[in-house]
């Protein structure tokens, strides 16, 4: 059984139930139950029309739940017997589901969890394992999120910006457990791009594809980080690069620049360079200028300083750091990098060690510690040779 195909049907099934009068939370529960049934039954008895099967079974589950509920509480419900098959408005319906699951009333963590479950069709256990929290915790997070959006009507147009931020968060989480969240984020963004006509959706998809293309080259077998400059570029996935570049070019041609397109443009310039030395840093700086203009983000300015350091020399890079808050994440690491290129290994070693202490993730901390160790070792060798 094709699990990806099955999961791709989930948002349309939930939407179909909602269209027939089910509220979102109940529809989502019913579809999850139908999914469990599908996994059990399909291998021996594959349906001719998987989507129709899923909707029919989910609808029955929903009616069962409603009847149980009604007989308990005698509640009025907008349910009239057996359903008429609805028109196949898959795309529009799925889009509403994206909006709902990324609704601004949700915290980012809740929006991520709900999106992965209702749009992505992952089980609560899979999501819990991917985010390294107990399953009961994740189940609570999801059911609270469902309660939060219970009053939101599915026919309201949503905010595409929050949807993109949620997908970006999922992508950046990488992978742990048995779910590849980066691949899942790409799948969901691709699905979203197919149903929308928006440059930033395309920009985010391009950004993801271009970064995903580097994945095999990004870590050594021992799990340690390989910097962009040191990566073996022959290991980049050329198929993903080509797709990312094509998606980006089509978006840029429409001349409505946004932050994801600008970030993707930087990634595309790196993808375009056969060696690190061939990187067109002047153009990279240009895109960071756009990014700073669009977002005003200090992180963009920090990255811009690195690019300036490459384009115009480390002194210029260090000058571009001026005015930025030294407490910014990775500020010390950038300063260390530029100081080393400026021929000041003592400062660089000290700043790398400080950056390692302030690092927010283990692999980055280890990488920075190694940089400090490398410089200190060179300094000791030099001192021994001089003395």
């Amino acid at each position: 059984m094709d699990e990806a195909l099955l999961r791709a049907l989930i948002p349309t099934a939930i939407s179909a139930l909602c269209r027939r009068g089910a509220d979102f939370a109940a529809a989502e529960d019913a579809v999850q139950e139908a999914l469990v049934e599908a996994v059990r039954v399909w291998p021996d008895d594959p349906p001719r029309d998987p989507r129709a099967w899923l909707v029919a079974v989910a609808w029955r589950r929903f009616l069962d739940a409603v009847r149980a509920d009604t007989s308990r509480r005698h509640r009025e419900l907008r349910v009239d017997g057996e359903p008429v098959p609805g028109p196949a408005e898959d795309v529009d319906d799925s889009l509403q589901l994206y909006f709902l699951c990324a609704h601004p009333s949700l915290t980012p963590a809740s929006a991520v969890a709900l999106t992965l479950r209702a749009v992505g069709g992952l089980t609560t256990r899979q999501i819990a394992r991917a985010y390294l929290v107990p399953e009961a915790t994740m189940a609570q997070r999801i059911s609270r999120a469902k309660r939060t959006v219970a009053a939101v009507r599915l026919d309201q147009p949503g905010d595409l910006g929050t949807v993109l931020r949620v997908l970006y968060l999922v992508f950046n989480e990488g992978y742990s457990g048995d779910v590849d969240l980066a691949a899942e984020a790409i799948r969901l963004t691709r699905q979203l791009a197919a149903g929308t006509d928006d440059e930033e959706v395309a920009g985010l998809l391009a950004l993801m594809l271009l970064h995903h293309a580097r994945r095999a080259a990004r870590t050594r077998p021992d799990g340690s980080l390989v910097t962009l400059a040191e990566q073996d570029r022959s290991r980049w996935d050329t198929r993903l690069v080509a797709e990312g570049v094509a998606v980006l070019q089509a978006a840029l041609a429409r001349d409505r620049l946004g932050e994801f397109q600008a970030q993707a443009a930087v990634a595309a310039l790196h993808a375009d360079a056969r060696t690190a030395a061939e990187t067109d840093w002047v153009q990279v700086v240009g895109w960071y200028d756009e990014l700073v203009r669009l977002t005003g983000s200090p992180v963009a300015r920090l990255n811009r300083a690195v690019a300036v350091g490459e384009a115009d020399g480390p002194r210029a890079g260090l000058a571009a750091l001026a005015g930025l808050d030294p407490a910014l994440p990775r500020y010390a690491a950038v300063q260390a990098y530029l100081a080393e290129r400026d021929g000041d290994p003592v400062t660089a070693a000290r700043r790398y060690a400080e950056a390692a202490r302030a690092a927010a993730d283990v692999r980055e901390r280890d990488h920075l510690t190694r940089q400090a160790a490398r410089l200190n070792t060179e300094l000791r060798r030099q001192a021994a040779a001089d003395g």
Partner: protein
Amino acid sequence: MVGSVPRVDAATGSHHTEEDDMARYLLLKHYRGAPAAVNDVPMDQWTPEEVAAHMQYMQDFADRLEGTGEFVDGQALSPEGSWVRSDGPGRPPVTDGPFAETKDLIAGWMVIDVEDHERALTLAAELSAAPGAGGEPIHEWLEVRPFLTAPPTVTE
């Protein structure tokens, strides 16, 4: 060091009594507050090869414990933290720190689920022998703390 029998401290050696019961232990690594390691050189003063060898040792150790079914969890902590306490209902929490002079600072932990206390000590000692500067074992002091268990279902 690996393979030798760790000495069991009289105060904690009798901790584990149930014979067929696994017991959980917290292995704590300190940034500060532990007695000085035998091979006490900060990591940024090692060579990159020594750093890599250390990381590999730690990774192999965790992998092996996963293989034997004894690994539960392992996490590293940021050295920066703050103190916080309640200031009463309706008032924002009071925070303080970080304190540069704090004597004790936890760097990270590993939780293991093992047969008995001796096994916990053996594993902690192995972890303590991770290679450091000059490729020599660090022989740092790790703290081993048994978890308090939940009450048993059958009590009589």
